[in-house]
Structure formats: structure tokens, C-alpha cells
């Protein structure tokens, strides 16, 4: 027995000649699939687009002076700083919380499910989730729903007087002043006939008595060139606020009736300006432009968090189950609160696992590609760009400059390498 074990021990170190045949297949595969592409990319990055001319470091210089690439760099930094930490944190919270509940496995399974969907499909899902039109994008639908409960939208969004009125911050003010005894004709456009409330009555021209100012607001349809005149079928617009302004002060305020008429009964002498406050015409709240330039990166990160949290939970939960129970119980017996147990016992004991998860996520984040490619619309892609996407675009998208693309690939490799080395050393130490 003893002799056998010693001969097994001796074999690996002492007879390299014997080892070679066993290692050779793996080495060939490794060299062909990993080493050769790596070295070739490095060499290729010193040549120009055609691959014929040696250009030294100029591909690298161009990379660091190109605005698009710099934005990609910046975004990668944002990703690395925000995303892995958020996912590890969420994973930790969910793993610890789900440990205590009865349906823990089912719960984790649900959270893990996004991992089973391809990144590409997830991207398409989130593209729809963040769609701007509230009738398509669920996020904006919720936002609009909540918003409208607290402040309902105006009745005639986007409507405006046909002419003779100037838009100011307060509303549409008449260019010409009016006074008591005048009749104001106020044709509005920009309203769909179907939007007019059912109670609206046909419009007609009012008669003003002495000392009062009357007017009518109606939906003016310019069919057959009858613009600016009431032509029988046109209806008044009810519920529009009208103000009379004198020297910048609102002196009277009223609302149009079902036939679109309004009256300012006791206007003192002097001229007033009739004004329609903008609140009549405010555009309805449509939510945020999630896929626009300013929010696109947070939106894509949120999608990635949704996908990867399940991954973190699985690993952390596995680590959690390996923690010696007696350490936790000893702390509890000593009177530690749950929070203290979490802070002082669970997290320190878990820290090796957390670190591995975190570093793995960093590597994953650095090569993020599909989500950005799918979620960002063309108009926002420059703002959302990341190195991996930029590498692909430079190499294959825009006239195929694979020299510059290789340079980006090498840079990306150099960025990922420290994290890789860290993980490898960690594994090795654990084994020893």
C-alpha cells in the first residue's frame, strides 16, 4: 500500500517525458484555440486596416483619442463601479432572506430564471419594458398611471389659437387688446374632433352688452377654406379657462360653457388682454424618455442586474449553507441581534465567496455587449457604447478596420486580465 502511493506521488514531477503524451492533446487544443488567437490579435493590432502595413502603436494612439472609444471607456468604468457591487449586494440580501423562508428553493428558482434566458432575448424584453409610449412600455405606463391620479392631464393637449395670439409662459395672450363691449372670436386648432367632449354644443357668435366682454372658443376646422369663421357644424369647446389681464395682473377669470362661450360681466373701463392659460393645453404626462441619451446606461444596467442577481444568489446561498451553524448560534446565544449576526458573523465568513462572485461579475461586466447592442436605439448607441461593442463595430461594422479592432481587443484583455489572475490565485490558494 505504502509503496504504491509513493510511486503515484513520484510520477508527475520526475518524468516529464512520460507526461508529454498525456498533455499533448490538451496543449494542442489550447494553443490552437486560445494562444494562437491571442498572439495573432496582438500582432494584428500593430497593422493597419488592410493588414499589410506595420503602423506601430498608432492604432492604440487613435483608440485613446477617439471620442467614441473614450465614451465607451467611461461607460465601462460606470458599469464596473455600479453593476457588480449592486448585484453582489442584492444577491447577499436575497440569499440571507430566503434562507429563512419555507419556499426558499422555489423563490430562488424564480430569481434564477432570468439567467436561463439569453441575454439577447432579455435585451428585447427590456427594450419593450422601457418603451417611451405609455401604451407599450410598462414602466412609463405605471408612471403615467400614478401621475394622472394626482394631477389629471389637461383636456385639450397641444391645442392652440389659430392666429392673433402669442405664446408666453403664462399662456396664449391676444396680440390686440380688447375692452368692454367687444366680442372675442377665438378659433382653436390642434384638437381632434373626437377629443371634443360629448356635451359640447354648436358654437355661435355671442352679443356683448354694455360693460361686459363676451367671446366664444371653438374648434375651427379649415375644411373648404373656412378658416377662422364659425361654419354651422363647428362646436364650442367647453371647460377652457380664460383670463382677462390688465397691466400684467389678472383682473377676471372664467371658464367657457358647453357652447364655448365665455363672459366677463363687470369689466371696468380700460383695455384688457384676453389670455388662455397654458394649463388648458398642457401635453399629457408621458413618462420619461428611458431610451434617450441621458438615461440609457442606467436602463441597461438595470436589465443586467435583473439577469445576474439570480447568479449571485445561487453562489452566495451555497456559501451560506457552508457557514458553520454553531458560529451563528454562539453569537445569538451571546445576545447579538440579527443585524449584528449578519454584519459581524455572516458577512465576514462569507467574504471569500462574495469576493469571487464580485470578481466574476466584474469580468462579465467588462465584456458586456449584447444588452447594449439590443437595448440602445441607434440614436442613443453612442452614449451607451461600451468597449466590447466598440470593438465589434470597429472590426466588422464600419468598413472593417480589424487592426484598430484588435487594438481594442488587446486593451479589453488587459483590463480583464487582473481580475482573471485574481480569481485564479484565489482558487489556487483555496485548494492549498
Amino acid at each position, binding site marked *: 500500500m505504502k509503496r504504491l502511493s509513493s510511486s503515484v506521488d513520484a510520477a508527475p514531477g520526475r518524468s516529464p517525458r512520460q507526461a508529454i503524451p498525456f498533455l499533448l492533446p490538451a496543449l494542442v487544443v489550447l494553443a490552437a484555440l486560445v494562444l494562437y488567437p491571442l498572439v495573432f490579435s496582438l500582432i494584428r493590432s500593430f497593422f493597419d486596416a488592410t493588414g499589410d502595413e506595420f503602423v506601430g502603436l498608432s492604432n492604440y494612439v487613435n483608440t485613446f483619442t477617439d471620442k*467614441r472609444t473614450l465614451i465607451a471607456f467611461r461607460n465601462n468604468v460606470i458599469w464596473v463601479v455600479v453593476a457588480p457591487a449592486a448585484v453582489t449586494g442584492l444577491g447577499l440580501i436575497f440569499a440571507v432572506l430566503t434562507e429563512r423562508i419555507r419556499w426558499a428553493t422555489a423563490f430562488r428558482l424564480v430569481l434564477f430564471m432570468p439567467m436561463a434566458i439569453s441575454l439577447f432575448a432579455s435585451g428585447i424584453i427590456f427594450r419593450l419594458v422601457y418603451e417611451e409610449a405609455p401604451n407599450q412600455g410598462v414602466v412609463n405606463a405605471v408612471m403615467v398611471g400614478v401621475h394622472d391620479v394626482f394631477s389629471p392631464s389637461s383636456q385639450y393637449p397641444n391645442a392652440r389659437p389659430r392666429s392673433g395670439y402669442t405664446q408666453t409662459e403664462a399662456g396664449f395672450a391676444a396680440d390686440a387688446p380688447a375692452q368692454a363691449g367687444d366680442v372675442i372670436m377665438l378659433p382653436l386648432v*390642434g384638437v*381632434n374632433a373626437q377629443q371634443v367632449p360629448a356635451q359640447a354644443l354648436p358654437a355661435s357668435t355671442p352679443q356683448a352688452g354694455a360693460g361686459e366682454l363676451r367671446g366664444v372658443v371653438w374648434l375651427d376646422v*379649415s375644411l373648404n377654406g373656412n378658416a377662422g369663421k364659425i361654419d354651422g357644424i363647428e362646436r364650442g369647446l367647453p371647460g377652457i379657462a380664460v383670463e382677462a389681464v390688465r397691466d400684467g395682473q389678472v383682473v377676471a377669470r372664467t371658464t367657457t360653457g358647453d357652447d364655448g362661450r365665455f363672459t366677463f360681466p363687470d369689466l371696468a373701463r380700460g383695455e384688457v388682454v384676453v389670455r388662455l392659460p397654458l394649463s388648458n393645453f398642457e401635453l399629457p404626462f408621458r413618462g420619461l424618455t428611458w431610451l434617450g441619451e441621458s438615461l440609457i446606461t442606467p436602463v441597461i444596467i438595470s436589465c443586467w442586474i435583473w439577469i445576474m442577481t439570480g447568479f449571485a444568489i445561487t453562489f452566495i446561498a451555497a456559501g451560506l449553507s457552508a457557514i458553520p451553524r454553531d458560529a451563528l448560534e454562539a453569537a445569538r446565544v451571546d445576545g447579538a441581534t440579527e443585524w449584528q449576526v449578519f454584519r459581524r458573523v455572516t458577512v465576514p465568513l462569507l467574504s471569500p465567496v462574495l469576493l469571487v462572485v464580485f470578481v466574476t461579475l466584474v469580468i462579465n461586466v467588462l465584456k458586456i455587449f449584447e444588452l447594449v447592442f439590443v437595448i440602445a436605439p441607434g*440614436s*442613443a448607441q453612442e452614449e451607451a457604447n461600451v468597449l466590447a461593442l466598440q470593438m465589434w463595430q470597429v472590426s466588422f461594422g*464600419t468598413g472593417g478596420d480589424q487592426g484598430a479592432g484588435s487594438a481594442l481587443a488587446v486593451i479589453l484583455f488587459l483590463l480583464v486580465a487582473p481580475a482573471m489572475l485574481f480569481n485564479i490565485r484565489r482558487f489556487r490558494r483555496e485548494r492549498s
Partner: protein
Amino acid sequence: MKKQWIALLALTAVAGSGACTGGAAGSGEDLKGQTIEVVGPWTGDEQKSFEKVLAAFKAKTGAEVKYTPAGDELPTVLQTRISGGTPPNVGMVAQPGLVAQFAKAGALKPVSAEVEQAVTRHNAAVWKQFGSVDGKLYGFTFKTANKSAFWYSEKAFQQIGATPPATWDDLVKTSRSVAETGLAAVSVGGADGWTLTDWFENVYLRTAGPDNYDKLAKHEIPWTDPTVRKALEELAKLWGEQTLVAGGPLQTEFPKSVINVFGESPTAAMVFGADFAASVITKNTKAKVGEDAKFFPFPSVAGSKDAVVAGGDTAVQFKDDKATTELMKFLASPESGEVWAGLGGFLSPNKDIKSSAYPDEVTQDLARRIVDAGDNVRFDMSDLAPAAFGGTKGAGEWKDLQDFLADPKNVDGIMARLETNAAKAYVK
């Protein structure tokens, strides 16, 4: 198997009946046993249609033709195949720049004299230029796209009693009347950059004329030229009025911009788009092309003549064996085009394809306008430009015009940016 043969024969009979006028009809040589390959961008329905064209060729000559669809990655596929030493016999290339690149690299074979004759006979002279590099003809446009069409909702136009506008100023006027009904006038698919380059190209071709168009396409005049300013200012007349453009254009992709006009709850009355907007309408909405959805040609700006911006797939040959040459001859003849024309979703610059070969009036009209514009047809400028400038998502001309759509007042700033980006891209 037998049934398929009969179907094929029947198809050829139909195709053949139209071919007699073509002149380039096959010589009936037997190429049985030979296999050649075509690489093209078409997938899905288009692939099926093109395979019917190839089936007609097989029935005629006996040569087996394999079609390899490459989709949007066609340039990469072809480049890889060429550097790998196994190019296909025939390629269908959408970018004239790529044709030139392949020709200069010596990968292409010039077309045979017979094909050249056929191209000259069946097309306006300008089309020959599109396929020529350094005076030699390397290919011809097999399938084209009419990128000078405005699609409008008949219902929305009826509501205000509008008729299709013939001039740009009329278009702006009509747009304002549409806006009075609470509907936006145009839906712009600004999330895709190419839709915006098509807008610009159509206006520029009309305001600056074909000669300047050619110069700008080669970057012989800068993007800071007064002609560019004029075109951008004309565009701003429409894009600059908030009520005329449907909301969120920069987040709207082309298909959605079409659905905005013809879908369940329309938000706009018109959409500018190429002929293939028709297939979006048919597939995604209940509107009927020709009844609910009609088109008018891009209006004349400041009294300009009829002109069409076209795109298209150029057939080029990488080999010059007999079967390949025969196939090129077949593709250049009206016979092949008529096969696909009958199946729909196809336009050809070939003036000898009978109008009746196209399946409906709208398609006939779209095709006729390309043929009628004669030498005033110009190839899509962004396809002529280096891809870094005219064909990259979120960069170059695409991005600059998107910025212009966001802020149409900033004509000077956009011109400067366009010129900077163009200068960088054209040097390479």
C-alpha cells in the same frame, strides 16, 4: 419530385413568355450538372422569391444554383470568403463602395460583353455608372428600392380634404392643416439613422441638383457648402415645427414610424419611406396598400425636376466560367426580374420589364417612377460614402442628422460636425 418538375416547367413557361422581348434570353445551352453559388442579403420571403428566380434559371439551362443568404452581414461574409479563397460565383452587394473595393482588390471579374450590352439596352445610362469602377462594368442593379416616396393615410387626408402635395411648400402647408386636426403631420423613424439620410438625400438632390449630389457623395465639396445649408434649412421647415413631427422621433424605429400612421391609433398622417414601407403596412397593420395607404413621390423643392433616390443590390461576379456568365446574363434580362416582380416586393430599374408584371398598381407606379426619372436617378448617398460616415449606428452622418432632428435650428453646428466626420472617414 415529378410534380415539382411540372411546377417548375409551368413557371418557366410563364417567365419565358415575357422573355421574348428581352433579347438577352438564354441561348438554350445545356449546363446540366454544373453547380454555382450566389450569396445575397435576402432572407425569409425574399429568399423564397429569389430562389424561384434561380429555379427559372435552372429550368432554362439545367445548372444548379445554390443560394446562400447572408443578411446584414453580407460584407463580412463576402470578405471572409474572398480572403479564404472560396468566393461564390455571384454576389448581390448593396453597397457600391464595397463593389469598388472588391474590384480594386482584383476579386471581381468584369462582366462579359453580352451582359454589358444587356445592361445598356435595358437600363437608363446612369445605372451603368453605378456598377462601373474605373470605366469597367463590374455589375448591374438587379433589385432596386425607390427611396423617394411619402406614404400617407387616406383617411387623415380626407378629413382635411387634402390632396397629395406636389411641392415642398405644399407639403409644409398640408402638414400644418393636418396638425390642426390634432394629428402630427409626419412620423419620422429617427432611431434608425438611415431614414434621416434618405430624407436629407431627397431634399439635397432636389435643391442642389444631381451634379452637386455626385460631388458631395465623393466629398469633392465639403459639408459646409451653401448647398448643404439650403437643404438642411428646407428640412428644418418641416422638422423644426414641433406640432408637425410625431412625438419621440429619436426613439422611433422605421417600422414603428410606419405603424404610427397606419396602425390602430394613428399619431401621424404621413411617413416618408422607401417602397418597402408597403410590406411593413401589410404585415403589421390592417390598412390596405392602395386604399387606406397611398403614396406620393417626394415633392419637388423650389421647382426641381422629377428625381429619385434609389438603393439597390448590385449583381457582381467573382468567377467567369460559363455557368456564371450565363446566370449574369439571365439576371440582367427582363425575364428574371419578371419572375420576382410577379411575386411582389420587388422593383427593378430594368425598363423592359412590363408594367403588368408587377402585382398591383402601387408597385407599378413605384417602378414606373424609377424608370421615368431616367438619368435623374441617384444612388443613396450614404451607401456611397465610407461606412464609417454613412453606415454606422450612432456615428457619422447618421448621428449628426439625429442631432439635427433633435435641434433643427442648429444648422451651422451640424454642418461643421458633418464635415469633421466626413473628412475623417473619406481619408481612410
